[in-house]
């Protein structure tokens, strides 16, 4: 590491205000930041910490509904951005400071070819002619190890996979060889196996061109691979800043330590009853949407009473489709779902109430799965009324009891609307709604992945307590192996609609495994700052992500 210690970006006393409820409130409350040429700084914190706002602020850009307050100073290579005119700032963007967004799928314009979006900035700044810019794009695609670098740019964004798009976006950020790139959670929306290829590509390219970067993420293990220094943020304020190694070894502040210590929760593993009948049993299920290709191919697994089965796999592996088959939303084309040994009706529309009540679902996004116009009491009360026929005082007593179960004070929450609740509280309401039917089996579809780690941990503890008290069985759909480790009793690994491996949790986290399970497990970033380097040496740069998964599928 022989990087010039020349200051590139200096932010002093940055305050950014946001407009909400008809008044301006501080979102960023006086943050200082110094970034040298060629240096990578990680900004980490939970949602609402203001990481992305600072990232955009570093480009002198305030998102709609926010403004940079007076007295803030953002100095980029000698130029003060807070007093610069709009066109002066615009001349920097794309050319000298570039941005890589969280979701490449949403941040590429669906109406234009990838390469036309890539060459837009170089053409606009008249740095290159169109043909030169296209050749340069292909060269960058090759450096980022995108397949078919000569022609991939001529596709439309929807014709390219998520991991490839994210790399194409990194290439696009490089198009004018900027001095600084803001990476705003560039791998959060990706599967772990795909994440690695993007991380490796970003690190390579930043090294090759000695580009400075602000790397924004909530994932400590990821930032440990990428950053030279780490700054921890909480609610718009800096908690502490130190070099990556120092920060990992000796975090000073309590908040930082608490971030490091999450996922300490692990529920003890339960064993299958000796000769019991499984509560839910999938038997050789095939399923597909309308007449499309098979999404599930000969899937079988069992869930026993009071136990948790985690189903893991990449997006598109058929996890959620399996859940839809069990609940009857998607009748299988072959096979049976058995409930305590007797077949479930295929289509939910034909199921009697007693079958319907057995399987309930909790969804990933509590924001979108709760009706914003309906009071909490009604959200929870409706299934209680529908399944148990409760009315009046009985119904209210039942809703109170359910609110007690999910650790929310009934008198306080009974008459509230979902929008008045925090993300974790909304997810608790989702749990209460599932419990209202008095089910024996609950499908949890990525229930913690939209939540911050500390909040997610609270939800996992709650689910575990409820399981012990009410003898519930869970099917946990997740791509987060830390969640698997903390809550499951058994694990089912799926790839491309097939079950590749299943077994008890303790066995699954010990070798030997199916190669795909190995790939999944080894792709989860670890806190060790050398983890990525070591892994790349072991696996080789050509054997990452999609390529590696495809190889296994071929065998």
């Amino acid at each position, binding site marked *: 590491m022989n990087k010039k210690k020349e200051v590139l970006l200096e932010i002093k006393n940055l305050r950014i205000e946001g407009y909400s409820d008809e008044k301006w409130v501080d979102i960023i409350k006086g943050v200082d930041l110094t970034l040298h040429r060629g240096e990578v700084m990680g900004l980490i914190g939970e949602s609402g910490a203001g990481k992305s706002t600072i990232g955009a602020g570093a480009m002198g850009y305030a998102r709609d509904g926010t403004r940079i307050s007076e007295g803030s100073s953002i100095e980029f290579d000698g130029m003060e951005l807070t007093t610069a005119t709009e066109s002066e700032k615009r001349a920097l963007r794309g050319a000298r400071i570039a941005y890589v967004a969280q979701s490449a799928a949403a*941040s590429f314009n669906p109406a234009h070819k990838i390469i036309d979006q890539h060459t837009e900035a170089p053409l606009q700044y008249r740095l290159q002619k169109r043909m030169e810019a296209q050749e340069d794009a292909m060269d960058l695609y090759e450096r980022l190890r995108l397949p078919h670098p000569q022609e991939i740019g001529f596709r439309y964004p929807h014709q390219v996979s998520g991991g490839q798009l994210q790399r194409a976006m990194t290439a696009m950020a490089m198009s004018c060889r900027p001095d600084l790139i803001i990476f705003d959670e560039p791998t959060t929306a990706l599967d772990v196996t795909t994440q690695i290829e993007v991380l490796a590509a970003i690190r390579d390219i930043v090294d090759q061109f000695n580009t400075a970067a602000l790397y924004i993420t909530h994932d400590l293990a990821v930032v440990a691979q990428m950053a030279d220094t780490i700054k921890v943020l909480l609610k718009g304020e800096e908690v502490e800043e130190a070099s990556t190694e120092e920060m990992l070894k000796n975090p000073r502040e309590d908040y930082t330590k608490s971030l490091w210590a999450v996922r300490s929760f692990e529920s003890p593993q339960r064993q299958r009853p000796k000769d019991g009948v499984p509560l839910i049993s999938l038997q050789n299920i095939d399923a597909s949407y309308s007449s499309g290709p098979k999404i599930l191919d000969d899937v079988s697994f069992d869930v026993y009473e009071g136990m948790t089965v985690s189903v893991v796999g990449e997006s598109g592996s058929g996890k959620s489709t399996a859940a839809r088959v069990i609940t009857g939303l998607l009748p299988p084309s072959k096979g049976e779902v058995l409930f305590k040994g007797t077949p479930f009706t295929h289509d939910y529309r034909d199921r009697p109430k007693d079958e319907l009540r057995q399987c309930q679902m909790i969804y990933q996004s509590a924001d979108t799965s709760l009706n914003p116009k309906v009071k909490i009491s009604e959200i929870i009360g409706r299934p209680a009324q529908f399944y148990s026929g409760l009315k009046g005082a009985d119904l209210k007593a039942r809703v109170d009891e359910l609110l007690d179960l999910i650790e929310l004070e009934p008198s306080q929450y009974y008459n509230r609307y979902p929008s008045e609740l925090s993300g974790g509280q909304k997810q608790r309401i989702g749990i209460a709604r599932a419990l209202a039917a008095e089910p024996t089996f609950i499908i949890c579809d990525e229930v913690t992945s939209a939540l911050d780690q500390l909040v997610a941990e609270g939800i996992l503890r709650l689910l575990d307590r409820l399981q012990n008290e009410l003898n519930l069985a869970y099917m946990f759909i997740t791509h987060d192996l830390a969640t698997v480790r903390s809550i499951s009793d058994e694990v089912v690994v799926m790839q491309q609609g097939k079950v590749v491996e299943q077994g008890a949790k303790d066995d699954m986290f010990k070798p030997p495994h199916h190669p795909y399970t190995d790939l999944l497990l080894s792709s989860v970033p670890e806190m060790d700052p050398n983890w990525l380097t070591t892994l790349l040496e072991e696996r080789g740069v050509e054997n990452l992500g999609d390529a590696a998964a495809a190889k296994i599928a071929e065998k």
Partner: protein
Amino acid sequence: MGDILKLVGQRLGLGLVILLVISIIIFFMVELLPGDIAQAVLGQGATEENLAALRKEMGLDKPAFVRYFGWLGNAIFLDFGNSVVTGEKVSTVIGARFANTLFLACYAAVIAVPVAIVLGILVALLRNSIFDRVANVLTLTSISSPEFFLGYILILYFAVKWGMFPAIASLSEGMSFGELLNRTFLPALTLVLVVVAHMMRMTRAAIINLLASPYIEMARLKGVPPLKVIVRHALPNAWAPIINVVALNLAYLITGVVLVEVVFVYPGIGQALVDAVSKRDFPVVQACCLIFAATFILLNLAADVGAILTNPRLRHPK
């Protein structure tokens, strides 16, 4: 491309079914009208024998569904029967008039659609500015004033006070195209004022709706200037709703022009329809309704196809 052709084929088939249903409704609604057509044609003084003879001649003595199929079979070949008032073929009565209406609609559309879209882009770019508000107020005023009122105001200023354009849009044989444009300018302008607001506001809303998308923010952070952000990044994704509103308004230009034609004494199909209704000339009424329905269906079909063609996911499947 095969998929798109299939989609278009399905839409076209559906359109035909709808047209068939509408033809049934039109035919039997006219059937339900009170009064006796033969009586209306011959007047109060007609004798029973005369009435019976006329009924037989017009086929009114046959059951309704037999007459329906006869009518439909001929209508497919654009033969809508003979006018009961003048005895001429319906197609000759309304053919020329329909062409006039089409001409006026095209004239108005050629002005209104580009003006509405360019204005929509400008107000989206300068949203919440004075320009945006003034444009909003003006277009809202024009859309909420009745056409006849707008028409008379235009006549008052452009024809009576300033004498720039003729107040009456009468057509004569052998007039030059320039003369034609000049004479029909005021009715066309009235129609433009009526339809521009709707299309402009939809363009504005469709574009502003997209401005919160991540790819718009990405374009801004790439240093793309504001106008280019809207024209190059927002507009291509906003076509579907815009095209739909444009199609609806084009349909209105053809089917909703009755008042404007009356105000400017323009020999279009709307006037023919009004005349026919007052004279109980039922074959003409049926033909007009059928033409209006077909116009609506065709334009909506065109809007669907347009929306499909502007969707990159459908144009470039995986």
